[in-house]
């Protein structure tokens, strides 16, 4: 499933481990996860969401992304072509790196959520100089 490069969305009803209070199906956003020397960057496609309707939680090493997306068409609309559904996005990740949770930043542009997760000092790579006597 993760290898699917189709732009079509993946329904993710079974993927989440916790129940949601809001009913209806939700989707698993496609993500890129990039590791740099000092941070992890998560890019998530959540088109149709608004910045104020996106929740990002980081707790006990679990990063959760939840974007609420309200229907854009009337429920009774008859589609000529209907290839994707519209609904909330939800996805969680276990992060094993030590992350400085207080410094996590998030921005949302053009339907893409970008998260910066800075590593704690202890996990940043450190150049050790080798001395000779």
């Amino acid at each position: 499933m993760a290898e699917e490069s189709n732009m079509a969305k993946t329904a993710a009803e079974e993927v989440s481990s916790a129940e949601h209070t809001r009913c209806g199906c939700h989707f698993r956003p496609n993500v890129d996860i990039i590791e740099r020397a000092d941070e992890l960057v998560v890019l998530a496609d959540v088109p149709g969401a608004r910045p104020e309707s996106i929740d990002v939680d980081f707790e006990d090493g679990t990063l959760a992304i939840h974007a609420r997306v309200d229907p854009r068409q009337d429920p009774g609309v008859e589609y000529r072509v209907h290839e994707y559904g519209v609904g909330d996005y939800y996805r969680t990740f276990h992060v094993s790196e030590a992350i400085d949770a207080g410094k996590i930043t998030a921005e949302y542009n053009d339907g893409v959520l970008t998260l910066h997760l800075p590593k704690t000092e202890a996990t940043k790579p450190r150049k050790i100089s080798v001395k000779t006597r």
Partner: protein
Amino acid sequence: MVFRSVQPRYPVHQLRQEIDRLFNGMLNTAGEVGWPWPVRGRPALNVWETKEAVLVETELPGVKPEQLDVSVIGDELSLKVERSDVEQEGVTYHRRERPVGSFARVVRLPVPVDAGRVEADLRNGVLTITLPKAESARPRKIQVSSAG
């Protein structure tokens, strides 16, 4: 591997997902006219009608208006998207799911449209194209007259 996504716990769920995926793939090819491109990586569409217009919607996260080409030729709507590759040197990719590259699609419109008044709006990664129906395709209320 730094990240591990939460996977389905039971094999039956995995099977269900596989079936859903295959099924979705089949549905995606329905209603397609002369699609010359590979199925993978093309933008999915929703198309519906109102009294006045045909509406085409597609989700294009990360795409800027200048990376988009929308044109109407005859009774076909052509959509070309260039999603830029932001690959950087000196970093490690743990996940790479977001599609990059060029995507194109042609859809045959169900009714004649007024090509001069087509509008395309890109907001929060969602493109909505409004194609006003040609005068001849709009519903017309016929006044019934009675003699006398």
